[in-house]
């Protein structure tokens, strides 16, 4: 997992049983219902499909497409043929496949990652308090095995699978509100209604993220064979496959959103543009997916997508052989595992030999390296030291961000604290830029004022009780090597203002356990929420039990509605209420106003110290691969390049 991508995986919203929909005018939804105004009569299809249709092996193109196929406005109408080659890493890299095949949810993100567009659902209506969502499917849409895709499939996926306690211990957070799961009812063959116990304005955005694929994931006529409700003697099937229980069998056959076995069963009918042919199994060295003849999307000229016949993923254990494949021109599109800054010079210099061009990927994170001082530290003395805002300001001013950006990020970033990225409509100047200057003198002055004026032999400041001003910062070297490099520089900068730190490089599992029981002094993690503040506001107030490391007990209070954890200060409680309101207002303008007030309070609170703006990364695209946008976001909830619709890519 390269670390850019890892960080963004934190973007998706965390299950929050406190979401209560506050009343919302229905009018706002109308603007979202921008369905395909006109259905083009289908004209073009892939040559091999045309031949198969001619020989009668396949129904005619018109019968394969839904009545109103989704029309994708492509830049250039492409040519059919070719195979997109991409590289995967040895250890369980199933998300690498998901990102290229794309997540065919009911709705999808637009290119700018700002609003939701129709996808499987042609159009939808939302009631005024955002508790009922009605989706209108495409008549005549078919699974990749030719059988019709109807509302029954959606109902089956949710009611029979996701809400089945054997299959899922707890219903995925995204599909429940106030700890009550959604109810999905079939209106007719092409209409299905989602009813929530409370208002859930963010539901559409959540559906567009990869974790929102459940409604369109399981195909009823196929998956029901492995479901006891529909197939009594499923037990024999389980024994035949020598597995221990029917959920094991179900998962082996139908997979789940985010496990390797989703791509290990070629017979499983899918709605994706390509269908798995060579499965992704343990020993596999290559995974191949071939064109889905019943894919329900066309370009504006009526040609059935996807243009490219096949996707071919090569698997290599060592990242370096991936780099080699790129340089020797053996991969067509790749950003995963190779997009570290240090690799850019090499990749840039070999563009000509590898026959590829570089595309810019806008980082969705906000802060490249966020430092969380544990304000709810178990040791009262440290807690008192950290809780003092001026102490944090002094530390921030003591940092020479310019040098860090130069050394670690090769000058590709700018000093930054937290908050939405510059250029995002909700960008907050104070939250982002306060105390980012390098003022060691001012920092020393503040620290002297706070009573840390006495120093020990090595020149490190002493606390009033005589203890040295010292704390350790947890970091995971394997995931975020650049953060380790930043800390090594910060250690030198803070030593100059008399503050001593220990860079505590620990193993991943250990990092989480220390955080959960609030044992850490401080911790470092890339700050998300640059492009999607609503989905991941953990740095703006105590929201995420594993993410908001500066006050884990406060987050436990927030998540458990005050049952356990510690009661947070007023400013935090105010912000929690504000966020709940914003989450319940579907209207973007009203939501923006609420969030602005929240950001003001966060800036005032200044709980975390940031280093610099999350650095944009890059990917390579073969020169002859067309219709690939020159710039697009890079995030987990915007599973690049999925939402850029790889089915429209083609080889010129």
């Amino acid at each position, binding site marked *: 997992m390269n670390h850019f991508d890892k960080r963004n995986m934190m973007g998706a919203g965390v299950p929050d049983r406190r979401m209560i929909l506050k009343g919302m005018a229905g009018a706002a939804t109308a603007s979202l219902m921008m369905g395909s105004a006109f259905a083009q009569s289908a004209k073009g299809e892939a040559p091999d499909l045309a031949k198969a249709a001619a020989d009668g092996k396949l129904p005619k193109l018109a019968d394969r497409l839904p009545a109103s196929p989704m029309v994708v406005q492509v830049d250039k109408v492409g040519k059919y043929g070719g195979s997109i080659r991409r590289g995967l890493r040895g250890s369980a890299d199933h998300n690498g496949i998901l990102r290229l095949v794309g997540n065919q949810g009911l709705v999808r993100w637009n290119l700018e990652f700002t609003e939701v567009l129709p996808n499987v659902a042609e159009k939808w209506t939302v009631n005024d308090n955002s508790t009922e969502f009605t989706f209108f499917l495409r008549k005549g849409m078919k699974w990749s095995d030719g059988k019709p895709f109807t509302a029954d499939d959606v109902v089956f996926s949710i009611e029979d699978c996701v809400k089945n306690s054997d299959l899922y211990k707890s219903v995925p957070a995204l599909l429940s509100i106030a700890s009550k799961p959604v109810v999905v009812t079939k209106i007719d063959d092409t209409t299905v209604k989602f009813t929530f116990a409370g208002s859930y304005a963010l539901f559409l955005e959540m559906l567009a993220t990869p974790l929102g694929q459940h409604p369109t994931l399981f195909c009823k006529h196929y998956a029901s064979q492995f479901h006891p409700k529909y197939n009594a003697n499923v037990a024999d099937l389980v024994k035949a496959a020598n597995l221990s229980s029917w959920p094991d069998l179900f998962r082996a056959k139908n997979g789940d959103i985010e496990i390797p076995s989703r791509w290990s069963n070629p017979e499983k009918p899918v709605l994706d543009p390509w269908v798995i042919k060579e499965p992704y199994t343990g020993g596999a060295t290559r995974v191949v997916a071939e064109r889905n003849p019943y894919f329900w999307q066309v370009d504006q000229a009526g040609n059935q997508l996807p243009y490219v016949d096949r996707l071919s993923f090569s698997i290599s254990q060592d990242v*370096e052989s991936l780099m080699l494949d790129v340089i020797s021109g053996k991969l067509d599109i790749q950003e995963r595992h190779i997009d570290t800054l240090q690799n850019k*010079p090499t990749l840039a*210099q070999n563009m000509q030999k590898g026959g590829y061009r570089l595309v810019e990927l806008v980082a969705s994170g906000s802060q490249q390296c966020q430092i969380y001082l544990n304000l709810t530290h178990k040791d009262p003395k440290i807690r008192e030291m950290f809780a003092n805002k001026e102490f944090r300001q002094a530390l921030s001013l003591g940092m020479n961000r310019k040098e860090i950006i130069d050394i670690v990020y090769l000058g590709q970033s700018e000093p930054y604290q937290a908050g939405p990225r510059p250029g995002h409509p909700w960008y907050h100047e104070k939250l982002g830029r306060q105390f980012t200057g390098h003022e060691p003198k001012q920092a020393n002055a503040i620290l002297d004022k706070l009573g840390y004026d006495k120093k020990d032999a090595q020149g490190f400041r002493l606390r009033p009780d005589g203890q040295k001003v010292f704390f350790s910062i947890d970091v995971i070297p*394997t995931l975020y090597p650049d953060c*380790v490099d930043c800390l090594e520089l910060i250690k030198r900068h803070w030593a100059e203002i008399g503050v001593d730190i220990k860079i505590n490089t620990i193993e991943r599992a250990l990092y989480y356990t220390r955080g959960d029981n609030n044992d850490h002094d401080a911790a470092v993690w890339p700050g998300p929420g640059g492009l999607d503040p609503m989905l991941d506001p953990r740095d703006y107030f105590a929201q995420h039990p594993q993410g908001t490391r500066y006050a884990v007990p406060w987050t436990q209070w927030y998540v458990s509605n005050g049952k356990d954890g510690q009661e947070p200060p007023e400013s935090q409680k105010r912000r929690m209420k504000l966020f709940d309101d914003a989450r319940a207002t579907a209207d973007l303008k009203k939501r923006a106003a609420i969030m602005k007030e929240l950001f003001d309070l966060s800036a005032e609170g200044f709980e975390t110290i940031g280093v610099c703006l999350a650095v944009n990364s890059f990917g390579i695209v073969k020169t002859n691969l067309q219709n690939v946008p020159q710039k697009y976001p890079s995030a987990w909830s915007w599973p690049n390049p999925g939402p850029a619709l790889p089915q429209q890519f083609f080889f010129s």
Partner: protein
Amino acid sequence: MSEAVLGPIENKQLAVASQWQLVWWAFKRHHLAMAGLYITAFLYLIALAPGFFATNDPSAQNGRAAYHPPQSLHFIDTAADGSWTIKPYIHASVLKRDPQTLAAIFTEDTSKKIYLQFLGSGYEYELFGLFKTRLHLLAAENTTQPIFIFGADRLGRCVYSRIIQGAQISLSVGLVGVLLSLTLGILIGGVSGYYGGRIDFVAQRAIEFVLALPTIPIWLALAAALPHDWPAVLNYFMITLILSLTGWAQLARVVRGRFLSLRTEEFVMAARLDGASEGRIIFRHMLPSFASHIIASITLAIPAMILAETSLSFLGLGLQPPSISWGVLLREAQNIRSIATAPWLFIPGGAVVLAVVALNFLGDGLRDAADPYNK
């Protein structure tokens, strides 16, 4: 007609030559082995006081010098009027970063000369962990100017100084690991060789069993079990322990072989009949005659350990940054960008090759000279 290889008996000096003198004379005839000896001695000298030989603080980062190429060292300083003096200097270099490809381009500014001096004062370090000093073999006259003899890595740290510092751990891993496996080897090999019978049979099977095991999978599993948050020093000793766990079998077999062949020698029986105690027989009579073989086997085991440390580090399991060893340096260089843009990052590999070749020649020479009597 086997005229004693050591020449006629009248050679007085030869008559009183003890075993070690004879070994030394036999050894001196191997020129390559002698070269190996000098290089090894030099390397271990560096390992003793790395600070003195380094030019920059091994872990000091310098933004300006990321991926700085090696600077050419000039010794002849031709002044403007053509007169030249022996004064080592290097040229300062200017950093320009290609905006598009982000590649760092260093151009040598031939006008500005930075003079160096031998035994100058450079960054402060602890000599033998006893006292702080600033004395270096080579240092720039103004200490602010870093010298990059072998260039710099991605954080602008001096590769030359890091190799010198890494020598301390890599060479000592070899030594300590071998000593560990030696004690085990002598213990088990000696006992099974000396007493023979059932003990020997069981020990022999155990030795064969350990020798037949592939080392990497076992190291992998053991090293993966090492909790990473242990301090570097403890981690270092655990690694040497792991490496020696499989190394002792080789030595045990050599010791056992020697013990068996010695047990049947008549002078050992003579010693026993003289009334010598068991201990005296082993340490006064038997040990001296295979000490030279043991030393030869040790010298041949050390390079294997050094290579093993690099392999472990390559798998990301051995020593971890911030501790510096040749394995760690090679792991950082183990990528395509280093080959393409910064090949000087592979110089630590050269250091490994130099050390291993030197030690092998030394061990080989020792093994040939180990038994000057039975030529």
